Each structure stands twice: as C-alpha cells, then as structure tokens.
C-alpha cells in the first residue's frame, strides 16, 4: 500500500472521527438522564423529528414526480431544469432562507397574496420550519431518485405497456417498486438533511422554543449559555442520525 495514499487517508479518517469522539468524551454522562428529560430538550427533539418527517413526506410527494419528469421525459430545457433543481444543494442555506422570506414572507411575492386571501402567514411558524427544511433537503431526494430511474431497466416498463398498463399504472406498479431502494436511500438522505437544517430555518422561521426551535437551533443557542446542554443536545442528534442510518442501512441503503 503506497504511503502517499495511506497517510492522508488515515489523517482524513481521524479528522472525521475525532470530533465525534470528543463529543462523547466531554459529555456529562452522570447528569445525562436528568438533562435529557428537560422539557426544552424533549420539545426541540419532538419538533425536529416531526418537522423533518413532514418535510421528507412533502419532498417525496413532490420530488419523486419531479425526478420522473427529469429522467423520463424529453422536456425541452430539461438540463436547465436539472441545474435549477440542484441549486439549493450548493446554495448557502441562509440565502435559501432569505429567498423563502422574500417569496413567502408576509410582504413577499406569494406570501402577500396568501395573507390577504387566506390570512395565512408562513414565516416564524412550524409550517415555516417544514418549508425551510423541505427547500434545502428536496434536491437530495430528487437526485437520488433520478439516478435510480436512470439506472432502472426501462424495458420492464415496455413489457408492462404491452400488457395493457397505462403510464400511471406502469409507474405505480412497475417503476416505483423497482426503484424503491433508490427512493428509500434518497428519503433517508433527505430526512437527515432536514433534521440538521439550521441556516434556512433560523432565517425563515426564527428561533421560538416549542414552535420553530429545532435541535440544531437549540444546540447553537445553548452553546452561548450552557455548553453542557449543547453537548447533550448534540449527542441526541448524533444518536438519532446513527440509529436511523444503522436501521435503514442493511435493508435499503447498504447494498450500494
């Protein structure tokens, strides 16, 4: 094994693993059960899990059809469309939050109409958190599903068509089951990204405990006042991520 590769590889591994180890070493283990039971921890965790899950469901409902559109149709300007879809992936989340505010804020382009017509105001609400998370996380799902669609053998869809299946039936009964592992992997990535979302959330939804203060926001806030609390919250986030990854890995994600 060449040293030129081995040394940087090990350094890279250490760089990724050591901070997490530090988190474990510095954790206030004796006080942990008691701190975990604190209402603000439970509240933030519940809010994070709920919003990330709802955001993922929204991403699935909108993102899978969008991926299908990108992978399976000859839409003009499809390449531009794909580029646009991936923009939130590289965009700093704070910018995403500002953009959401400009469009969906109470004085925003669409938000003004929403408020005037229905009295609905999205910023600084739990719904706003969900929107911010979905905005940032959806590209992960779309890209994963589009890849799965491109890799899937389209001849199965042709076979289904010769058996009398309409395009919708083909999608529902053949395409979707065949790309299920890809969709699942995409959903997991999407969920994890939504769970960790910070920048867009704090910009668009603010930082109100119990309403918009998700775990990452709570960690950031706690770091200023109560570093031990920040560590506890971080540990919880770490644990949730690891559990989800481990639970899904063998079943859906691992084979790749």
């Amino acid at each position, binding site marked *: 094994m060449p040293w030129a590769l081995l040394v940087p590889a090990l350094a890279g591994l250490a760089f990724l693993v050591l901070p997490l180890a530090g988190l474990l070493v510095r954790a206030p283990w004796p006080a942990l059960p008691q701190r975990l039971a604190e209402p603000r921890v439970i509240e933030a965790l519940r809010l994070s899990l709920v919003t990330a899950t709802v955001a993922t469901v929204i991403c699935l409902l909108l993102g899978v059809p969008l991926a299908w559109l990108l992978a399976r149709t000859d839409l003009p300007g499809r390449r531009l469309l794909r580029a646009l879809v991936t923009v939130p992936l590289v965009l700093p989340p704070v910018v995403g939050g500002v953009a959401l505010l400009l469009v969906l804020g109470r004085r925003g382009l669409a938000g003004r109409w929403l408020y005037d017509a229905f009295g609905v105001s999205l910023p600084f609400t739990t719904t706003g958190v969900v929107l911010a998370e979905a905005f940032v996380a959806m590209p992960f799902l779309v890209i994963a599903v589009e890849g799965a669609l491109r890799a899937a*053998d389209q*001849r*199965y869809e*042709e*076979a*289904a*068509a*010769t*058996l*009398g*299946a*309409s395009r919708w*039936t083909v999608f529902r*009964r*053949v395409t979707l*089951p*065949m790309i*299920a592992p890809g969709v699942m992997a995409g959903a997991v990535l999407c969920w994890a990204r939504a769970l960790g979302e910070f920048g867009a959330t704090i910009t668009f939804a603010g930082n109100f405990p119990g309403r918009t203060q998700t775990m990452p926001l709570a960690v950031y806030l706690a770091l200023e006042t109560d570093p031990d609390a920040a560590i506890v919250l971080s540990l919880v986030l770490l644990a949730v991520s690891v559990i989800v990854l481990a639970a899904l890995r063998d079943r859906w994600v691992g084979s790749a």
Partner: protein
Amino acid sequence: MSLRAHLVVERPAFRLDAELDVPDGEVVALLGPNGAGKTTALRGLAGLTPLSGGRIVLDGAEVHHLPPEHRRIGVVFQDYLLFPHLTALDNVAFGPRCQGVGRAAARRIAAGLLERVGLADFAGVRPGRLSGGQAQRVALARALAVRPRLLLLDEPLAALDAHTRLEIRSELRRHLAGFDGATILVTHDPLDAMVLADRLVVVENGAVVQTGAPAEIARRPRTDYVARLVGLNLYRGEADGTHVTVGDVRLSSAERLKGPAFVAFPPSAVALYRTRPDGSPRNLWKAVIDGIERHGDNVRVHLDGPIPLAADVTPSAAADLDLVPGQEVWAAVKATETHAYPA
C-alpha cells in the same frame, strides 16, 4: 385474428421496409442475421418503436396509431423481463388486472395459465428463483393472459443453455400450436425457426428476401445468408436446359430450366481428387484449397477457383488426399444432387 402489416422504420443508415401477412393460427419466424431489423419489426408491431410509415391491421382494424397498451399484442421478450418484485402468479395476473379484471379473478386466470405451462407449483415464487426455462414459460403465460390478438416472441430460446433449449423448444411448439391467433417469432437460429414455425420470413438489411415453408427454404435458398444457414453451396447463373452457367463454370443439374437461375447443392455432393478422375464426370473443375475445418463428423474444405465452394469429405478421405491449404485439387459435383430453380 389475422395480421396484415407493412412496417417502415427509418433510422440514420438503416431502413426497415417489410410486409408481413400472418393468418390465424399460423406461426411465422422472422429469420435473419443480427442487425437485419427483426427486433425492430417486432417492436414496431408492439408499438414500442414508432413506425415511419406503413400500417398494421389486426382483425381488419388499424392499430398502428394506438399506444402499446391498447393494441392487445402479447410479447415474450428475449430476457423475459418478468417483474422481479412480483411472484410468478402476480406477473401473469398483471395483464388481466390492467384490463380491469378484479384481483381474485385475475389470479384465477393466472393460476389456470401457470397450470397450462406446467408451473402451478411455482405460483408464489419470485422470478429471481426461477430457472431460465421456467421464466420463459411464465413469460409466455403472462403474454397469453391478456388474450392477445397477436403473439410476438423475441428470440424465445436464446437465453437458454443448449440442453434446456432442446426441451423447451418442443414444449414451446406445443404451446404455440394451442394458440389460435397469429404468432410471429424472431430468431437468428435456423433450427429454432424450422422447428417452431409454419412459415419462414427471411429478413436481411431491413427487407424481406425470402419467404416460404421451412422445407422449401431449406431446399431452395435465395441468398447467401440463407444458403449458409441451411448449409448449401449457392450460385446465381444463367440456365439453358439442364445446364446453368455460373461465371466460367457450366453446372449440370437435375432440372430443365431457361433464364436467370439459382443452383444449389450440399457440400457432401462434392468429391475431391488429387488427379483428374477417370472417365469424364460432369461438373468437374480445378480448385485451390483455401481452408480446412472440422464440421460434425466430417471435414469441411473451403475451395477457391472459378467459383468458391465448400466440400465435405470424411476424415479418412481427407487424410488419404493429404489436404493442405494452397494445394490444387479436382472438384466434382454430382449432377443428381444439384438443384436449379428460377432466380
């Protein structure tokens, strides 16, 4: 349930232009080399490849403007393409379900078809656990489940190993005989075509070059490709009585004929001599050995000369003659085994 089709598919550097008429109950084999357009023709019929022109008439109704799901044409694909996430039973029930049959009824239909192809015990098995032969039978059952007006099979035996192939071939013939609609199968294997089909349609370079009963095609090939498939030497020449002139060679044949003609004879009708044989047999000329290969129990000798020629001799004769490439020999062809027919 008969098919009348004129298929035109144009692509850069390729044009398929073929007419196909298949009456009820007939099995037609599209036979041709790779890239001849056989599969394109099949996909055109099924609606999976758009036609550039022509028409498809099934039972007197035009269907070429319909999408594949409305044509009711059953297709058995080369790799079968059984849905991997569905059991054998649900694969077969898929078509009836799409036609609006209820779940229970569709499963009953599927179970009946699986029984017919001898796979009743495999209803709950996923395709990944079926052997090649079993998968092929499930694919056939799935295609028949939509009660198709036309059945298409793309290289139905190509994915099977030699042993299974023999077994499945005769079984497939039985199942095809039980189907009352028109059947078209695509193959590049002349044996499959001869065993399975009532009629052969030979396609080369996107055009039909010969059509007829298997025995007729085997006896009277009209292109080099078909002649090679059925193992005959084939020449085109000018007939005058019992002679056909091919280039510098005058071949005697069993038939009387006048005008442009084909002459065909098997390699086994050729005898080779080191020196000019006694007497004066007809159809005799000097040739140079171009190559030698084993061919079944015999030795096939490829000869250059006034006309290219393949000759089969027994291994002992080959040893006696001491045949080596580049050597000159006399080749004689038996007139009684030489067939001439109008070109």
